[in-house]
C-alpha cells in the first residue's frame, strides 16, 4: 500500500482518537472518574449524525417512506446540492458537530446520575453496563441508526474531488483536535481543573471545602462526553455511513484507556504521544494484516492477534510504567511561581 495512504490513515485516526483520549483524560486522568462507558458518548455522535441530522434533512426535504429508504434518497439529493454549494456542506458539518456536542453533554450528564455518588468500582460497572446495553439496542433496533444495516448519510464534502476528500477530512479532524486540545488545556488550568485533581487525590478534602462531589462528577462527565461525541460525529461524517457495530467497547473504551495509560495520565501532551504511538501500531497491524497472517502462517485472523497484543501491552504498562511516557507535572500557578522565586 502506498505510503501516503498509510500516513493519511495515521493522521486521520490520530485526530479522531486524540479527541476521545483527551475527553477521557479530563474524566479519568484529571478527575479520577473511571468512565468504562466511553464508547457510549462516541456512539451518541454517530446517532447525532445518522439519527438526528438525517431526520432533520428528511423532514426538510419532505421525503416520506421508511427511514432507511428515505435517508438513501436524501443522501443523493443533498450530495447534489453540496457539490454545487459548498456552504451547505460546511453548514451541515457545523450543525452535526453542534448537535453531537449537545447530545453528548446531555447523555453524559444523565448516564452518570445513578452512580455519581458511588465508589469507583460501582461507577465503572454501571457506566460499562449502560454503554453496553445502549450499544446493543442501537445495533438491534433499526429505527435509531439503521440497526445491523446501518444508515447512509450525506457526504458533507461532496464538493471536493474524490481523491482529495480524505486529505481535506483529515485536516478538518486535526483542526477540531487543535481546538479541543486548547480548550482542554484552558479548562484544566482554571480553579475548576485544579479542583478536579484534588477530587482525584482525595474526595473527602474536596467535600470538606464545601464542594459537592456529585455535581463535579456530573459536570465533568458531561463535558467529556460532549467532546467524545464530536469525535464520533466526525468519524460518522467521514465514513458517510453510520453503523452501530463500529462503536464497540474495545475500539472506543478500551483503546482510549490504553492510549492515555501509555501516554501518561493527567497531562494532555503525554496523551497525544500515547495516541500517536498506539495509532501507528494499529494502522500498521490493520494495513499489513494479510501479510502478517501469511508470513506467520497463522491459522486464524490477524485481528485476534491485535486484541491479544494490545491487551498484553495494557497490562505491561500498568505493571512497569503506570505513570506513562510523560509524567504529570505539578501545576505552577502565578502565586506559586512568585513564592518559589
Amino acid at each position, binding site marked *: 500500500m502506498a505510503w501516503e495512504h498509510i500516513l493519511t490513515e495515521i493522521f486521520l485516526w490520530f485526530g479522531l482518537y486524540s479527541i476521545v483520549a483527551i475527553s477521557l483524560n479530563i474524566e479519568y486522568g484529571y478527575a479520577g472518574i473511571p468512565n468504562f462507558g466511553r464508547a457510549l458518548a462516541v456512539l451518541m455522535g454517530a446517532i447525532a449524525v445518522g439519527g438526528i441530522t438525517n431526520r432533520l434533512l428528511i423532514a426538510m426535504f419532505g421525503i416520506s417512506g421508511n427511514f432507511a429508504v428515505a435517508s438513501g434518497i436524501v443522501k443523493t439529493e443533498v450530495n447534489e446540492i453540496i457539490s454545487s454549494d459548498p456552504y451547505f456542506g460546511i453548514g451541515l458539518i457545523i450543525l452535526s458537530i453542534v448537535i453531537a456536542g449537545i447530545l453528548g453533554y446531555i447523555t453524559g450528564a444523565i448516564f452518570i446520575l445513578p452512580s455519581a455518588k458511588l465508589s469507583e468500582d460501582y461507577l465503572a460497572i454501571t457506566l460499562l453496563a449502560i454503554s453496553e446495553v445502549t450499544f446493543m439496542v442501537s445495533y438491534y433496533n433499526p429505527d435509531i441508526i439503521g440497526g445491523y444495516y446501518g444508515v447512509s448519510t450525506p457526504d458533507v464534502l461532496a464538493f471536493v474531488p474524490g481523491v482529495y476528500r480524505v486529505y481535506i477530512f483529515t485536516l478538518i479532524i486535526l483542526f477540531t483536535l487543535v481546538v479541543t486540545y486548547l480548550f482542554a488545556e484552558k479548562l484544566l488550568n482554571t480553579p475548576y481543573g485544579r479542583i478536579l485533581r484534588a477530587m482525584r487525590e482525595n474526595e473527602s478534602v474536596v467535600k470538606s471545602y464545601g464542594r459537592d462531589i456529585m455535581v463535579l462528577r456530573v459536570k465533568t462527565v458531561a463535558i467529556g462526553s460532549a467532546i467524545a461525541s464530536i469525535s464520533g460525529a466526525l468519524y460518522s461524517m467521514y465514513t458517510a455511513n453510520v453503523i452501530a457495530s463500529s462503536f464497540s467497547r474495545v475500539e472506543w473504551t478500551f483503546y482510549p484507556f490504553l492510549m492515555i495509560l501509555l501516554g501518561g495520565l493527567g497531562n494532555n501532551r503525554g496523551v497525544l504521544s500515547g495516541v500517536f504511538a498506539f495509532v501507528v501500531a494499529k494502522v500498521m497491524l490493520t494495513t499489513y494484516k494479510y501479510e502478517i497472517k501469511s508470513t506467520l502462517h497463522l491459522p*486464524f485472523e490477524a485481528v485476534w492477534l491485535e486484541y491479544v497484543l494490545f491487551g498484553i501491552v495494557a*497490562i505491561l504498562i500498568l505493571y512497569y510504567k503506570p505513570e506513562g511516557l510523560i509524567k504529570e507535572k505539578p501545576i505552577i500557578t502565578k502565586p506559586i511561581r512568585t513564592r518559589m522565586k
Partner: protein
Amino acid sequence: MAVIEGAVIYSNLIVLLAMGLTLTYITTSVPNFAQGSFAVFGSYIALTFLRFFNLHPYQSIPLGFIFGGLLGILTYVAILKPLIKKGATIVALMIATLAWDLILLGFLGAYSDYLTYSTGKPAKKYIFTYLDFHIYNISAILIVSTLVILLTLIGLFFLLYKTKFGIALRASMENPDLAEIMGINVEHTRLFSWFLSGALSGMAGCLLPFKQEIVPATGAIIIVSIFAASIVGGLSSIVGALLGGYIVGLSESLVTYALSLIFGTGILVYSKVVSLIILVITLLLIPKGLVSVKWRKVIKWRGSIS
C-alpha cells in the same frame, strides 16, 4: 411453561456466574470484567471435548470446572497478584481485568478460527440445543443446571461452615487484616476464591450453549446480566448473588416475554434493558444491594404507616 423453564435455566447460569464474580470481589475487592469471557471459555472447553473426543457437554461439566478453575488461578497469579503487590489502585486493577478480557477474547477468537479450520464444523457461532434430551417430559438442561446449582450450594455450605479451611476463608473475607494477624494465609484464600470463581463460570459455560448461541464475544453481552445480578443482591455477599441472580435472570426472561405479548416479538432484543433498569433502580434506592436492607425495620416502618 417452556418460557418459565427457559427462565429458570437462564437464572441458574446467571447465579453461577454472579457467585463467581462475588467470590473474587469479596477476597480481592476488584470486580472482574472478564467474568463473561470465563463463561465463554467454559463453552469452548465443552465444544473442544465434543468435537475431538465426542464427549457430551454434560459429561464435560467436571472438565469445565477444572479448566475454568485453572483459568481463574492464572488470572490471579499472572495478572492481579503482581499488580496488587506493586500497590496498584482499584481502577488500575479493573483496567487490568478489562485488558485480560480482551486477551481472552483474542485467544478464544483465534481458537475458534483454528477449530473451524481443523474440524470443518462451525465453531465461531454454535449452539448445543440439538444435543439436549428429555427425562420424563422435562428437558435435561433444566435438571442438570438445577443439580449443578444445588451441588454447588451444598458444597459451598459444607466448605464454608463445616471445615477449618472454611472458617479461615470466612474470616479472611470478613476482615483480611485481622485474619492475617491470626495466622491465616490470606494469599491462599484469595487463590482459592479465584479457582472457585473460574470453576463456577466454567461449569456455567458448559451449559450456556444450551440456552443461547455462543460467539467468541458472547462474554461482552452476558457481563451486563452478571453485574446486574451481583449488584442487585449486594456485591459483597454470596447469598446476595444467589438472590440477585434469580431476580435478574427471571425478570430478564419473564418481563421481556410479558412485554412481547403486548408489543410483539420485536421487544425481545431489549431483554438486557430490563437488567439495566433493575440495576439502576437498585443503585438509586439501595446501592449496597438487597442483603443490606434491614427487613425488620422495613416491616416496622410499614406497620407504623398502617
